[in-house]
């Protein structure tokens, strides 16, 4: 077993934490929410969670193939299949699902065929399939309707989803289909990863790229068809991609992303279903979407490293550090020019040179104990002198590196003067730089 990096540990911790939270949610929700866990709600919540897992996992691949909106097109494209199955076999769920899958799959095929053979882009062909297939479904439905009383309710269910109607058997079916999909995914994991990341290289290595891509699309179709009952046509795309997008923010590894997407999906599906039971007017599908979106927003804001809050904090810290370093060097040069490094420097001079940023830097330096006030002047402390000469030398070394790095045969590092070059290069390389610097100064 390889050792875990800090990031891996963080992700696994997160996965555990969220799973725990999801488990605790049920008892807690009974304390805070007015929910009774009757048979129906248990079934719906379980169904929602399972669907969240299936669509979260498969949706991750849709996102990475940059086919996020495929989910939208294919969920609409299922309608004629449902109608056709109804026309031929009556209201039997397995047939309806098979019909839906067949129609969606045909949609995938059509999208591929038109995109490959014309200059139309994929977004246009997806839009065509979405609208045309849906229209075909409507035509069939209205035709059925003119014959019998059957379909108006069915259409509404199809468009908006009908969580309350989810039965035990449906949940079993979802579990079964999800299980088969995961089995395939597990067996062909490395192949799917490769064709998603670099189809050309996969082709050059003898993998059947088109076959694998169609298989993956078929699995995505299965997830969509399962989800239609709960989320409905329009919201299905959100259910498919939101967990994956949230998961992507927390990790840089496909495996972790998929597991996290499964957990996010389960959380959104389960809690969305439970929250919608608080009030009879709250529809389930939309609640799931809202919960998913909250997860996405939290992830975008908070994910370590990538998240917006972290970026902002880092930016602020960098800016402060930069100001502090600048002021430190100013102080050093001023004092140096005045004969003694202990020479107090008038505050007016510092602010005059550095502007408002200098005040910020000065405050930070004082917090670090590198400067001390001396009336209206500032004086470097002994640690301050040490730090200042360090940073001044760093800048000089950077200059040397930039000028003579190639000549000295030093490895290339991105120029970032706020970093200590002595940490970026090997000791031997630094020695060479310092030697050069001494030569230049002397």
């Amino acid at each position, binding site marked *: 077993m390889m050792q875990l990096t800090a990031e891996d540990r963080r992700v696994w911790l997160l996965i555990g934490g969220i799973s725990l939270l999801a488990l605790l949610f049920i008892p807690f929700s009974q304390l805070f929410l007015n929910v009774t866990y009757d048979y129906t709600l248990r079934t719906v919540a379980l169904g929602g969670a399972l669907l969240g897992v299936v669509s979260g996992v498969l949706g991750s691949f849709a996102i990475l193939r940059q086919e996020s909106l495929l989910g*939208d097109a294919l969920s609409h494209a299922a309608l004629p299949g449902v109608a056709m199955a109804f026309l031929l076999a009556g209201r039997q769920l397995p047939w309806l699902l098979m019909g839906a899958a067949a129609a969606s799959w045909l949609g995938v095929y059509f999208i591929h065929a038109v995109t490959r053979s014309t200059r139309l882009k994929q977004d246009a062909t997806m839009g065509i399939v979405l609208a045309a297939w849906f*229209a075909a479904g409507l035509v069939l439905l209205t035709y059925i309707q003119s014959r019998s009383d059957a379909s108006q309710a069915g259409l509404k269910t199809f468009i908006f989803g009908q969580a309350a109607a989810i039965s035990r058997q449906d949940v079993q079916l979802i579990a079964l289909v999800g299980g088969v999909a995961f089995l395939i995914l597990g067996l062909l994991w490395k192949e799917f990863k490769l064709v998603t990341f670099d189809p050309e290289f996969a082709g050059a290595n003898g993998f059947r790229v088109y076959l694998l891509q169609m298989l993956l699309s078929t699995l995505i179709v299965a997830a969509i068809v399962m989800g239609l009952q709960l989320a409905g046509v329009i919201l299905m795309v959100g259910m498919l991609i939101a967990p994956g997008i949230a998961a992507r923010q927390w990790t840089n590894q496909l495996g972790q992303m998929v597991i996290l997407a499964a957990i996010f999906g389960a959380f959104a599906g389960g809690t969305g279903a439970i929250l919608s039971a608080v009030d009879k007017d709250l*529809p389930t599908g939309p609640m799931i979407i809202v919960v998913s979106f909250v997860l996405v927003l939290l992830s975008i804001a908070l994910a370590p490293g990538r998240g917006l809050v972290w970026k902002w904090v880092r930016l602020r810290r960098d800016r402060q550090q930069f100001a502090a370093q600048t002021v430190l060097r100013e102080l050093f040069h001023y004092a140096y020019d005045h004969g003694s490094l202990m020479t107090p420097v008038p505050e007016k001079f510092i602010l005059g040179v550095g502007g408002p940023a200098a005040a910020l830097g000065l405050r930070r330096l004082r917090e670090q104990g590198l400067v001390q006030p001396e009336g209206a002047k500032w004086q470097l402390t002994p640690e301050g002198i040490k730090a200042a000469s360090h940073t001044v030398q760093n800048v000089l070394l950077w200059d040397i590196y930039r000028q003579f790095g190639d000549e000295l045969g030093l490895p290339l590092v991105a120029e970032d003067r706020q970093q200590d070059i002595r940490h970026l290069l090997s000791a031997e390389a630094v020695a060479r730089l310092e030697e050069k610097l001494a030569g230049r100064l002397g």
Partner: protein
Amino acid sequence: MFQLEQWFIQFLLYFVSPEAVNSFLRDPRHTAIIIGTLIAVSGALLGSFLLLRGMALTSDAISHTVLLGIVVAFLVLLAVQGQAPDLSSPWLILGAAAAGVATVILTEALHRSGLVKQDAALGLAFPLLFALAVILIARKVENVHLDVDAVMMGEIGLAWANSNSHCLENCESVSITPDDPRAQINRQCTNCRTLGISPRDEGAQFADICTNCGVYSPGQAWQAGLIATQPVLLFWPKSITVLALITLLTIGFVGLFYKELKLSTFDPALAAALGFRPALLNYALMVVVSLVVVGAFDAVGSILVIAFFIIPPAAAYLLTDRLSWMLLLSAVIGAVGVYFGYDLARGRFLWLEMGGLLAGLNRLFGLGLSEQWNSSISASMVLMIFFLFLVAWVFSPRYGLVSTLVRRAAQRRHFADQVVMGHIYHHQGQVAEHEELIILTLHHHFRWSPRKMARVLARLRSSYLVRFEKGLVLLTPQGEARVHRFRQTQLGRNGQSMAQNLP
């Protein structure tokens, strides 16, 4: 709105009689086709730009999120006015347009965080806004008439039923006051209801109440027998006026900003550099798209409306390379689809009756299908437009499947000829001639089947481009000339034009 209609009708009546207009519009077919055509034209004009900007699915997103705009505007008006607003209120349309812009802003904000790809951002934004709308409707609008089904589905066939009546002649509106001789006065108990007593009881108070007082429009007055001569009325479907206005707005927008739209579609950076504010133009485009979507709700519903935005421009894009032609063609394709789509809904596919087909299916498979074909008109229109797309895809002279196949086959033959002649040209007269040009083994060099090679050689020989000599195949002088020419035209040009791209 009403006033506009009147002006237009007066203009119309210079040319036709009111009876003709009435009987024309009374036919649901005509109304449906007019409305469908208006949607098709504005959808095609805007959709062409969306398609070329790679934003085809933005119309899909907007068509869903405008629901949120309508609901929010509805609730605000409800709170302000204290009563449910009319669904055709301009405030609701404004709300819808705002929601359309909000969708684009939310999508761009998500995208600009750098953490979410463009398509994923769209796929996140519109389900969220739609979900919020559905939740709001479920929570707040329970007892108020805001029919989600109507927004989602729409039915173009019913558009004629919702008409304004315009009076043209004998337009006597009658106002009856209590002192009018025609007023019907009844003596009624005024406090019986509140006190819960009968008129005969003591304490009952009476007053004279006029039961037919009020203002009568000419039509109502005629029905109530208040006027002697029948007024001439003209019924005008409301949707036509709304959609005509929106279509005019669309045409005006595209006409006015044609140059800017074109430039910012093909080169946004240049457009920005020239000071055309492509971002602003983009938002304006989204507003117009939202307006068309809202206007089309009644007729085709929010899902099908995107067909009018995407499919006709996609078909036109396969037929032409010029933007102006693309706009025109896509409008025509949309309109033609609408025209034949109505017939499809009523059981006729182009000139083919579908009853017979269904009967045949029944007889063959015993399905017991209804032979009376009657289905959603708007969906049928979309199917017809899709059919036209398929026709364009298969038969387009330049980009169609058939012409591509034919061209490829011809090219393959041409290339095969050229490859073989080029090969001979290379080796003819060289030392390896006796190895490379043996007729019976020539196919090995190309990895072709012997049959294919035989076919190619036969073809070349019959047009006197090669000759056979001692088991070898050699070029004739004509053949050599052909190779030279090919090199100059096909290969040479490539090199020349590419020379400009030197580093």
